[in-house]
């Protein structure tokens, strides 16, 4: 059953749990993360969706297909034979001036590989939720971040979600971010496989009219179908060589994204009561040491951090929301003066004791500080390995020891690994 049918019977939310109680324009429903994403897609009502099913993303395509079949969206749904074709069709439709979405996971994202670079190189604002899942081998359908981390240099904006609500919120904001004329880059919305995608949570669905107004219309800079103003897209550039200049433009768009993401997050806060920035800080101002994490793990860690703070332990937390562009400057400012930081990575780089991708980039961000905090890396949860409270407590114990002794015993640690 399409989720929108369930919504008709749901109660208008009177008591908000968000941080802005004056806003009352949404309905609270109990849905899984994939339905939260397909609900956002229904409200965005993209011109074209080209997608191929893959666990655990399948449920998004499945429920969205139902919405198309029921006539609840005007989207042209292209059922392709692979993810390579899904992204190819998305690229073509986007160059034609359409608002385009697709979604994938794991091997599907890997199969899109060469097209990811084409989408960003052509500056096409395609929005793609990616349900994070481990990459084979061995075959594993559960959550880790190795799929999207593999695409970190593909020129896509990457936004992580902590829960189903954020997956919904981020999907709506991604449209605005991608289509901003100062950016025009594709955006990946990331949500943890199964932990977010398949768990039922309370999600506030904002009223259709308000979302429509927030998302607005797409004004493409050109259209392949505009015969009055013809353009050449996908041009060849190897003889005279301007390739380097185009790559620098992509970096500029990423730099512009810092401000746009914050502006869109603020504007979204005005309609939802949920404000978004590049990352979220918990108690960093008076902390001596902190944890940096992203995705669903941030929820578990926050619970523990708040508990410890209530017992007077000077700990803080940063939940990294935007991974591309990487908010190095802001993170360094936030962490400056701390004694030690522990970075949680749900993927490995296999670079020879360099740690996970977030650790490598965060440690690099701290390099220019006069007073650098000690940095410890915890690689956890690969292939869906559970991150328990006990494991986080173990890491926190080591973090506190490092902060007090001024020494890191082991820089890269595998948390929850059977030794």
């Amino acid at each position, binding site marked *: 059953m399409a989720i929108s049918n369930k919504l008709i019977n749901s109660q208008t939310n009177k008591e908000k749990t968000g941080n802005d109680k004056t806003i009352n324009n949404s309905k609270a429903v109990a849905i899984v993360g994939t339905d939260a994403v397909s609900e956002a897609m229904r409200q965005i009502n993209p011109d074209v969706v080209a997608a191929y099913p893959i666990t655990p993303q399948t449920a998004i395509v499945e429920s969205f297909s139902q919405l198309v079949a029921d006539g609840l969206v005007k989207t042209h749904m292209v059922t392709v034979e692979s993810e390579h074709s899904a992204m190819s069709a998305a690229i073509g439709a986007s160059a034609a001036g359409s608002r385009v979405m697709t979604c994938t996971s794991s091997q599907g994202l890997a199969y899109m590989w060469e097209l990811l670079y084409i989408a960003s190189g*052509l500056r096409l604002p395609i929005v793609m939720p990616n349900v994070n899942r481990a990459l084979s081998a061995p075959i594993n359908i559960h959550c880790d971040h190795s799929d999207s981390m593999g695409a970190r240099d593909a020129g896509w904006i990457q936004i992580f979600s902590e829960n189903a609500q954020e997956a919904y919120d981020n999907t709506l904001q991604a449209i605005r971010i991608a289509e901003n004329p100062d950016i025009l880059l594709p955006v990946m919305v990331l949500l943890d496989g199964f932990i977010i995608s398949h768990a039922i949570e309370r999600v506030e669905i904002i009223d259709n009219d308000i979302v429509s107004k927030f998302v607005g219309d797409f004004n493409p800079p050109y259209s392949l179908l505009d015969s009055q103003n013809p353009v050449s897209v996908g041009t060849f550039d190897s003889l005279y060589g301007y390739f380097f200049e185009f790559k620098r433009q992509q970096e500029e768009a990423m730099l512009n994204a810092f401000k746009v993401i914050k502006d869109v997050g603020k504007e979204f806060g005005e309609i939802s009561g949920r404000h978004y920035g590049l990352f979220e800080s918990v108690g960093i101002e008076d902390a001596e040491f902190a944890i940096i994490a992203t995705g669903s793990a941030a929820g578990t860690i926050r619970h523990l951090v708040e508990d410890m703070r209530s017992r007077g332990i000077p700990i803080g937390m940063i939940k990294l929301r935007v991974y591309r562009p990487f908010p190095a400057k802001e993170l360094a400012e936030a962490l400056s003066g701390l004694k030690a930081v522990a970075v949680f990575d749900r993927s490995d780089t296999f670079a020879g004791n360099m740690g996970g991708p977030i650790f490598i980039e965060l440690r690099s961000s701290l390099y220019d500080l006069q007073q650098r905090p000690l940095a410890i890396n915890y690689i956890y949860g690969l292939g869906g390995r559970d991150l328990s409270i006990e494991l986080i407590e173990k890491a926190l114990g080591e973090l506190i020891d490092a902060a007090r002794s001024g020494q890191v015993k082991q820089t890269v640690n595998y948390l929850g690994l059977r030794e």
Partner: protein
Amino acid sequence: MSWDIKGIQQWGWKKHPAGAVIKDPGNSRSFKTGGWRTFRPVRDEEKCSQCLICFVYCPDSAILIKNEKVVGIDYDFCKGCGICAAECPLDAIQMVDESKLNK
């Protein structure tokens, strides 16, 4: 629509159109590809019967026609693929090494 690309080889990165999208299509005419050629087709007017088979086969429209007759080969665009020489039923086109012609 005309796109002024004067001095493009010295342009800074900010001046290029985003995504390398060209808003002045059909400009490949001004991109001369004859320089790619290794072998040059040279036509023997004596042998030519004006059957126009070379014109039909040429993938680059480089066989120049006037009043339904072959009048020459457009070396600005001919890439020297040799299809015309291979298809000519009278062997009226020979492929000649460019390096030997230039010396």
